[in-house]
């Protein structure tokens, strides 16, 4: 029983991170219909950026947090402005190759900047881990879950209550109709890129204290975030959370009961299954064009 609870805690910790990455995928997909294969690299930039700002430059944590998120969203902005908008034929295969190229480029830059070694960051708070019903709970888990909640509530507020959020949803429904109504749809796409890369950055910042961060961590996390988004239903915020937590928990139990070498395979097998069996995901209501 204790064991089960321990797996569960470690599952929701990782799962919440996957959920945050999945929210980034979903948000961009909603606004532009695009899947950004470089999303995982924003996570890597977030984790390593935080380590540089916080540990390297010894800025206070909140300042380092803001600086990292700003930096990562700037990278997202530049990517959209220079690479995505310049595309003449927005055929999926072209956009896939461009975002895959961006992901490899960022990975290479990460390697040049931070080297091939893994880096680590201390926990955000000085609290030591405490016990809950016999299983240990890391304070970082609470930080991660709290941030996830804040992001989701913030997103809901943004979509439902602000004019910009509503405008972005209008662009998602029909770009043309939105621009006829005077919504600057190009700026909305830019904003969506900035927000979704910022979310990737936040995911990286939160994961930095509980894992070793290195230049090549992004591909794996990006794929898992995508898997979580597909599991819950791409485009749905609540779906991303359900998918992320579910993936995290399944992974933790797989590692605990079967073998730790299976850890990374679980996400991919799940991804392939979901793509074949139910591509709309668990909570994806609308039949998205996937076949």
């Amino acid at each position, binding site marked *: 029983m204790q064991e089960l609870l321990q797996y569960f805690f470690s599952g929701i910790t990782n799962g919440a991170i996957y959920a945050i990455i999945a929210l980034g995928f979903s948000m961009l997909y909603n606004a532009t219909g*695009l*899947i950004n*294969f470089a999303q995982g690299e924003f996570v890597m930039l977030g984790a390593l950026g935080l380590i540089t700002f916080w540990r390297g430059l010894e800025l206070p944590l909140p300042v380092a947090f803001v600086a990292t998120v700003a930096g990562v969203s700037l990278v997202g902005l530049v990517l959209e402005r220079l*690479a995505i908008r*310049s*595309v*003449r*034929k927005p*055929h*999926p*295969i*072209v956009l*896939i*190759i*461009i975002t*895959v*190229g*961006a*992901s*490899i*480029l*960022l*990975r*290479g*830059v990460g*390697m*040049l900047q931070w080297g091939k070694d893994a880096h680590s960051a201390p926990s955000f708070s000085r609290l030591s881990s405490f016990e809950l019903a016999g299983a240990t709970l890391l304070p970082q888990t609470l930080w991660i879950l709290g941030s996830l909640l804040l992001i989701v509530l913030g997103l809901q507020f943004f979509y439902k209550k602000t004019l910009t959020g509503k405008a972005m949803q209008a662009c998602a429904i029909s770009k043309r109709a939105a621009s006829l109504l005077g919504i600057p749809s190009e700026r909305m796409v830019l904003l969506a890129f900035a927000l979704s890369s910022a979310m990737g950055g936040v995911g990286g910042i939160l994961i930095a204290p509980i894992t070793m961060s290195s230049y090549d961590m992004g*591909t*794996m996390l990006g*794929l898992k975030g*995508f*898997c979580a988004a*597909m599991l819950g239903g791409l485009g749905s915020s609540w779906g991303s959370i359900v998918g992320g937590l579910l993936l995290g928990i399944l992974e933790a139990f797989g590692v605990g009961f079967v073998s730790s*070498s299976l850890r*990374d*395979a679980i996400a*991919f*097998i799940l*991804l*392939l299954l979901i*793509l*074949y069996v139910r*591509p709309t995901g668990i909570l994806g209501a609308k039949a998205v064009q*996937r*076949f």
Partner: protein
Amino acid sequence: MRGLENRNSHMKYALFSLSIVLTGWWVSNPYYLQLLTFIGIYTVLALGLNMLMGYAGQISLGHAAFYGIGAYTTAIATVHWNWPPWLGLLLALGLTAVIAFLIALPMLKLTGYYLGMGTLGFGMIFYILFREWTGFTGGTSGLVGIPPLSIGALTLDTGSGYFYLVWGIVVVCFVICERIVNSRVGRALRAIHDSERAAAAMGVDTSRLKVWVFVLSAVFASLAGFLYAHLVTFISPDSFDFIVSIRIVTMVVIGGMASIWGSLLGASVLTFLPDWLHVFSDYEMVVYGLILMVVMIFLPQGFTRGMLDIYERARSRYSRPSTSPQG
């Protein structure tokens, strides 16, 4: 007309074969000979992916998996079971075809981004398999002692023997692909590339054809893996990871989508580049990333095709400058 085309293509292959023989005879430095042999292996890889990406318009971000299946199957057969290498080749190609067929059936129902993510995922699964199935694959430390190939009493070590073998296979692959491309099947593939629905409406069995070309391109990759394993006689999972899949895609992108001879160019550029630039290993990913992005933004048909287009536009502008100066 058809006869003329045939004669042209025969001439082309005669010239190509002649230049291979001359190169093999002229280059004596074993290092360069090995480099050229690698170009041949990569050409087979790029050619296979080009059939899938360039002609049928279906992306694969996990092609290193098939390359790895080819290499590991023949390695396991020859090292663990002491099979002769040529039997290992048959097993490798057969196994790859079966696996590719089973994967393709559900996978190719996906399109666009989902196909990209799906192939990326299965590439990762096979990389994990190569790394974790230590009893068979040797895990991260790899498999050593893969025997060299031999034909009869003639052993093909690294050197001109292997060079001729690989390039002979390249010529055969070129002929196969060119014949496919210029056939009814090739036209159907290009129709799928332009519009799958329109192709289906014209009576093309699109799903069967896509599975078929996926299997073909996987078998090409497996063949390249076989040649690689017996050339270097040592394989480890790192030769088949994600960045290798990206390298193959980059070759196709440089060479040009739907360009058979472009595969040769893409493979040559990506083999010579690290050799010329000694700092390349640090900048490898940055260079690949930039190539992929820049080529796709400005020349979405790939580098060679894009250059040809620019040349042709310039020529037609030059030949009638008075009519339309804007082009």
